[in-house]
């Protein structure tokens, strides 16, 4: 997903250069491969998953994984408290996590960039007002703010995504604003301004494309952070609601079995970790490839 974006946005001449630097980072390539694998699993979940994520097998409650005594290869990672196949739930869960990441990043990037552009371009009172509001949002610990927001909006996946987008968005605002302010004083912008380019044109076509690199890196980080935050909310009982096979929610449901069935606790968390790690690896690679300063060192 992110890769496609990057390719489209980097100037054609820079594409091969980008790939050169990106592929030099072995971790980033591993991250990319893992991420693509998870993406494919998510897309083809109905074909890949051995069972339905919601079918309960009442004869096989809390079945251990296949390699343990009592496990069967029919349920490789075992079953949960109502006899659902954990592997299948994890595969379907990938859909939710990726979807959450995508929605949150889209929402916070669009709103954050717009607000940041406005603040950085117009400056003055508008800027002060916007930045003050961002300060207020940033004065709360993000998870706490998201938790209270979800409590207000009502627990659920959609509301969790909205809340996380809202607490994520100030980062994009600040980043865009800073970039715009730097770019605005540069010659090419002043030049277009003198040549009579309209405000909107200046904002979106002249300045924005030149601020993209840090935004893309931040977006990748926001993607993984969103997955973590959504899982944390799910874990606290305020995110996706059962029986949704969202990983954090699965963990929350599994907590009462912590003594008796380690597998219902272990695997959902592992899935979160692997996904987030893969994305962060990619993020590191992207930063190295896009950030000219670090590239040189």
């Amino acid at each position, binding site marked *: 997903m992110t890769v496609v974006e990057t390719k489209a946005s980097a100037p054609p001449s820079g594409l091969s250069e980008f790939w050169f630097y990106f592929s030099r980072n072995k*971790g980033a390539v591993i991250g990319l491969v893992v991420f693509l694998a998870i993406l494919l699993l998510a897309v083809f979940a109905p074909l890949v998953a051995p069972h339905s994520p919601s079918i309960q097998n009442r004869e096989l409650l809390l079945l251990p994984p296949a390699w343990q005594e009592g496990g069967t290869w029919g349920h490789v990672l075992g079953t949960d408290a109502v006899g659902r196949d954990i592997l299948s739930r994890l595969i379907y869960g990938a859909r939710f996590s990726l979807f959450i990441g995508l929605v949150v990043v889209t929402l916070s990037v669009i709103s954050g960039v717009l607000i940041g552009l406005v603040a950085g371009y117009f400056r003055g009172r508008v800027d002060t007002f916007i930045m*003050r*509001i961002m*300060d*207020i949002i*940033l*004065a*709360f*610990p*993000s*998870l*706490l703010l998201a*938790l*209270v*927001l979800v*409590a*207000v909006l*009502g627990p659920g996946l959609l509301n969790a995504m909205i809340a996380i987008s809202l607490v994520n968005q100030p980062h994009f605002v600040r980043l865009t604003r800073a970039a715009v302010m730097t770019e605005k004083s540069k010659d090419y912008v002043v030049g277009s301004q003198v040549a009579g380019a309209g405000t909107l044109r200046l904002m979106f076509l002249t300045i924005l494309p030149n601020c993209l690199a840090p935004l893309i890196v931040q977006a990748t980080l926001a993607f*993984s952070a969103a997955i*973590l935050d959504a*899982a*944390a909310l799910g*874990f*606290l*009982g*305020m995110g996706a609601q059962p029986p949704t096979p969202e990983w*954090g929610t699965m*963990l929350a449901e599994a*907590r009462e079995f*912590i*003594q008796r069935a*380690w597998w219902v*606790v*272990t695997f*959902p*968390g592992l899935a*979160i*970790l692997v996904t*987030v*790690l893969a*994305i*962060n*690896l990619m993020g*590191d690679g992207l930063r190295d490839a896009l950030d000219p300063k*670090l590239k040189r*060192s």
Partner: protein
Amino acid sequence: MLRFIFGRLAVLIPTFIGVSIIAFSFIRLLPGDPVMLMSGERVMSPERHAELMHQLGLDRPIYVQYLDYLAGLVTGDFGSSIVTKRPVLEDFLNLFPATLELSLCAILVAVCLGIPAGVLAAVKRGTWLDQSIMGAALVGYSMPIFWWGLLLIIFFSGYLGWTPVSGRISLLYFFPSVTGFMLIDSLISGQAGAFKSALTYLILPTVVLATIPLAVIARQTRSAMLEVLGEDYVRTARAKGLSPLRVVGIHALRNAMIPVITTIGLQVGVLLAGAILTETIFSWPGIGKWMVDSVFKRDYAVVQGGLMLIAAVIMIVNLVVDLLYGLVNPRIRR
């Protein structure tokens, strides 16, 4: 410098008012009302309901409630819990030392391990050591800490039986709270074994809470070090034949520390967010758990007051970091 300080303070006040408006209006938007919860399954008569709403002042116009609340804030009255009827500020002050102790220990661990790890990775850049340190840091940075905590409990408390599961100290020990910090209080109490007990209770939560800051600090230290090591004066120092230890330890590290200190300051918010999860998992009696419980209990007043107090703490810490930064780096004083 004074102007700089006043400038920062002047920004703080409107922000704090904004925070109070947000905290206040959020809570009014919560679905369901706290009065309903008082009676549980037993349905309350509409008359009784109205009477209680009136008693709690919830039937007044919102702006009146807000102004009233604001007036209270000025006198240090953050309202009283609807469930326990205790003043919010009192509970906060009771519980905050627990969170502070945990957070300080976590940041201490993160700094003490993170900076050397980052320096080592930078100096040994490109070696397997660098790669494994950075790999571990990235894993830590990607860690869902609520799961990490559960795993540690399963292994160290459940399987090995080395560490206690929850709480701050064994119940065998009981002494007056002087500082609110269990480690210090246990020493003051002079009871044999109390300090050790407090320490064993602290280990797992500290590890869990330190994980992300540790990773962030290690990564930040490494990149700051790399940047500094590439600077001319370091090259010159090297060329002059100074010992590598001297170059790294004195010249490079000192200059690399400025961004790292900022990073550490920025971890306060991260720590408090982490404390919410860590305290929930380890039943640590601090403000994170208190807030989560209150959200679930729909305790209007506590969520509102707690949000404000926590925001205030973060703002003050950020201010202090800002000022320190201004002190170290005069260029940013406008």
